[in-house]
């Protein structure tokens, strides 16, 4: 099973604890998304798994090899698209692909065919003879992605792969990633967007401040953090303030809505039911003119998860709620 497995990875850069005990595992044919905001440790994790740096403690195995002790074997098996696109501007797309194909030790007879296939897959046929320096940012990004797939690595890493891509190119990339997983590759991608993790991955690992704060399938995660938002419209802004005070008394948090008369109340599964909230508002004389109950957007749910990981509110035992 050519997968990815890591246990209790820790890594500090000076005073900054980039990784503070990260563990997860994935297997062949699966796409794992490392989801988290900037600075949460995604890139550091990828750098350890791709042998670019070593952990201070903990261990990781990629394609059945230890990333520190058996790094050369790991490099035989992996492909990486780094966050920043780095391709020599003075080479043509084809020259660049040819060079990487040689360095990845693709058999000579297969190089031309494999290069051509990837250039077609990433819609780069027409520009393969142009110097990289003359290509648009999106094209360079696609060329970088195509090159990382040369030699058909069994474990693929994409660090924020859709950065700088237009919607069409992103779709093209997502299809390519899914195809590799369907063909049996282990894929790890990092993203700051729940939407991307949801669209692509079989397993999501949410990172915040160098720790794993949640792990699950996209559906599990969404269910886990699934709350309802009670969107109220009141008669006037005064009534909205009164409604906020009333719901606060019930132990519910609320945020201002889109208009001064609107109020979004976050319902809790363990909290009072909808009818009880509305009855209390009526009893307090709050004049409610409209009520909508909606699910939070994915990004709201993600932010909520991160909010729970915020150490300022972390006075309760960590990770207890997850």
């Amino acid at each position, binding site marked *: 099973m050519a997968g990815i497995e890591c246990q209790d990875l820790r890594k500090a850069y000076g005073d900054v604890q980039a990784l503070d005990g990260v563990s997860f595992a994935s297997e062949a044919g699966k796409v794992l998304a490392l989801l988290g905001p900037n600075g949460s440790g995604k890139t550091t994790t990828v*750098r350890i798994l*791709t*042998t*670019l*740096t*070593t952990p201070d403690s903990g261990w990781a195995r990629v394609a059945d090899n230890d990333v520190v002790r058996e790094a*050369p074997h790991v*490099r*035989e098996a*992996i492909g*990486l698209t*780094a966050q*920043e696109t*780095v391709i*020599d501007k*003075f*080479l043509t797309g084809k*020259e660049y692909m040819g*060079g*990487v194909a*040689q*360095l*990845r*030790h*693709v*058999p000579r007879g297969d190089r031309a065919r494999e290069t051509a296939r990837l250039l077609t897959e990433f819609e780069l046929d027409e520009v393969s003879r142009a*110097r990289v320096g003359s290509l648009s940012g999106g094209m360079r990004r696609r060329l970088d992605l195509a090159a990382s797939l040369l030699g058909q690595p069994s474990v693929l890493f994409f660090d924020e792969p859709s950065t700088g891509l237009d919607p069409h190119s992103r779709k093209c990339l997502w299809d390519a990633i899914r195809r590799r997983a369907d063909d049996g590759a282990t894929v790890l991608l990092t993203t700051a967007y729940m939407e991307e993790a949801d669209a692509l991955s079989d397993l999501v690992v949410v990172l915040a401040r160098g720790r794993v704060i949640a792990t699950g399938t996209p559906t599990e995660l969404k269910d886990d953090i699934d709350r309802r938002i009670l969107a109220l419209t009141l008669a006037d802004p005064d009534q909205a303030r009164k409604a906020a005070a009333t719901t606060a008394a019930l132990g519910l948090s609320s945020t201002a809505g889109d208009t001064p008369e609107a109020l979004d109340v976050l319902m809790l599964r363990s909290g009072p039911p909808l009818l009880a909230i509305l009855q209390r508002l009526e009893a307090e004389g709050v004049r409610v003119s409209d009520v909508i109950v909606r699910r939070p957007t994915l990004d709201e749910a993600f932010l909520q998860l991160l909010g729970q990981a915020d150490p300022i509110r972390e006075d309760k035992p960590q990770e207890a709620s997850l």
Partner: protein
Amino acid sequence: MTMFTPVARSIADLSTLVRRNMLRYVRRPDVFAILVIHPLIILLLLRYVLGGELLIPDYIQYFMPGLFALAVVTGSATIGIELAEDVSSGVVDSLRVLPITRSAFLAARAITDVAKNVLIIPLVGVLGVAVGFHLVGSPSRIILAAVLLLALGWMFAWISMTIALWTRSVDATQGLALMLAVVFSFVSSGFAPVYTMPSWLQPFVKVNPVTHVASAVRALMTTAHGPVAHNILSSLISITVVLVIMIPLAVTRYARDLR
């Protein structure tokens, strides 16, 4: 993939990397031209503006070996600058995840340096002859002189690569490597005899590899039978001492995280 033996593979890796480095010069001839224009300007300055004949008769016969050394040393300083660019842009990281020997990338840079100096040395020679330099030595003596110059360039390439890897900054490498190139070239016997310099400076001049190489090259190029064995030996010893320090420094730093 099994058809490659490890050695054949390493050679193929090296040639791919060297080709990539050399294509940079082919595609950007202006970058290469600067490496020849720089010694040309110094050549014209020394030949016509400073008119060193007041101090040393037939000064061009004296300073050309120093100018050759200056040309290869500044040329080699740019190897470090290019490496610093590759480190800071992330090219090095993208190579470090490939299944190639880690030292292949540094070795390819150093080989590129030799290839570049193989072009620069004759170009500077032609320019020198055009303004009055007389090659007295036999062809074999001249080739031996060129080989010594290549060794000097190779040494300086490792100095500038070490600077690049430890500073990881293009600006710092540019400043430091070019400054050292100027110091090594001029604070040597390349352009003026050692005895004309203040006594506190002479110890450095006497250990400077450029002094030994310039003296050997001078004997080889400007005399037909002058004794050279001592100067060649001291050149090789001084170059080896620097390499023994620099190569491990560069390689160990390269093996660690460069972020």
